[in-house]
């Protein structure tokens, strides 16, 4: 019950999830490959006109990141649900919201961070200027944790359901819309050379908000799903 044992539980859970992910490297690579593939589909579908690509590039990359995050989110609680670990979380004396933060942090390190690393390459593929790529990186750095945090709420609500994946998308995508709008707009604005401090402040606010509130919501949702 002490904060010391809570810290230990947190780090143990984090380490466990990361070790599992390293052993099943497909967990890291498949969402990444999906991200790159989906982004590549757009030039093929809408034509290769560089001006057009530059105009839609930020939005395309962000939508692809959204979808890749959604795809990888489904597994965040599933294996724990199936072998009963999730129930143990709820029964333990540790606050569930802290354990949730550990799981979400692991998920972001496994899927969000690789997206971040490869995004400059995608920016180049779509012909975005250097300033825009820089801002793209920043918006992704601030925004992908939000995707994991908000997504976790949706997964917690659907973890026990049979066709959970489809319903998850319907729940979570509307919640992602504000982030998408601010982020894509920020990169567009940066591409024409205007300042983006307002956009970045808004995205940071979203991050802080989701960091403080979504673990609580996820914990509550888990209790409902497992009741």
């Amino acid at each position, binding site marked *: 019950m002490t904060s010391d044992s809570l810290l230990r539980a947190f780090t143990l859970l984090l380490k466990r999830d990361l070790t599992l992910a390293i052993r099943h*490297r*497909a967990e890291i*690579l*498949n969402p990444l*490959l999906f991200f*790159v*593939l989906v982004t*590549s589909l757009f*030039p*093929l579908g809408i034509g*290769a006109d*560089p001006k057009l*690509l530059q105009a839609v590039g930020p939005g395309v990359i962000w939508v692809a990141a959204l979808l890749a995050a959604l795809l990888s989110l489904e597994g965040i609680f599933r294996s724990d649900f199936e072998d009963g670990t999730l129930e143990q979380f709820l029964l333990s004396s540790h606050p569930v919201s802290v354990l949730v933060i550990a799981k979400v942090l692991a998920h972001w390190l496994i899927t969000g961070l690789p997206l971040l690393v490869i995004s400059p390459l995608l920016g*180049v*593929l779509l*012909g975005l200027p250097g300033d825009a790529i820089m801002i793209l990186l920043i918006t992704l750095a601030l925004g992908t944790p939000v995707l994991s945090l908000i997504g976790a709420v949706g997964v917690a609500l659907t973890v026990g359901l049979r066709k959970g994946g489809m319903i998850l998308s319907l729940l979570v995508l509307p919640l992602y819309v504000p982030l998408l709008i601010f982020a894509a707009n920020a990169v567009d604005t940066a591409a024409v050379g205007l300042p983006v401090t307002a956009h970045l402040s808004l995205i940071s606010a979203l991050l802080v908000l989701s960091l403080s509130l979504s673990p609580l919501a996820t914990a509550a949702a888990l209790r409902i799903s497992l009741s």
Partner: protein
Amino acid sequence: MFNNFFHKMASPRYFYNISGQLIPWIAAACMALFLAGLYYGLVKAPPDYQQGDSYRIMFIHVPAAWMSMFIYVVMAGAGAIGLIWHIKLAEVMAISSASIGASFTFLALVTGSIWGKPMWGTWWVWDARLTSELILLFLYLGVISLYNAIDDKRTAARAVAILALVGVVNIPIIHYSVEWWNTLHQGPTVTKLDKPSIHISMLIPLLLMAFAFKLYYAFVLLMRARCEVLERERHTNWVKELAETK
């Protein structure tokens, strides 16, 4: 005599031993060709009239691109043999080729991009050849992902063979794309059916590097295939004994 050879080759253990002896020789020959190719390409060949010294990237880019397509065809062919005649070694060769092929495709794409920046002013353009080479990379990565996702190696090998065969249609598209579509990428200079339109001082290092890459593929493929054989045959006595003696 050949019948005997094929029978023996179908045995993983025989393959493992024979390949272990071959690898050093192939590697040595490969090294020699690389050194010769690099010397003729970086030192002896003169700068290009239009492109200056940047054209020397060609000695990496072109052989890598050739290998990326060649290996895919080998992979699909080996997959087909494994699928039709259930020969274990063919399955092993197919999957062992995948990551090597992906590496060459990646190398071709990146060196092409680096070469393109000073030449055409852009890192990337979505023209037919670059796009189909990118799709080739995705196909390789798909094969690798699918193989790793299936637990049973034999089922995985069959699934991957089907995937590779379906994707083989991409290869002629890449090769002929520069003729079928008006593209930024230059036309064929070596693999057309008449006299190559490249100067001999540049042709020699190109061919040397191309052979070096082929030998490289051969010995790295054998190394990977040996690992795959060990993994698949780990429950047999000869592998168990081998592990004890190491």
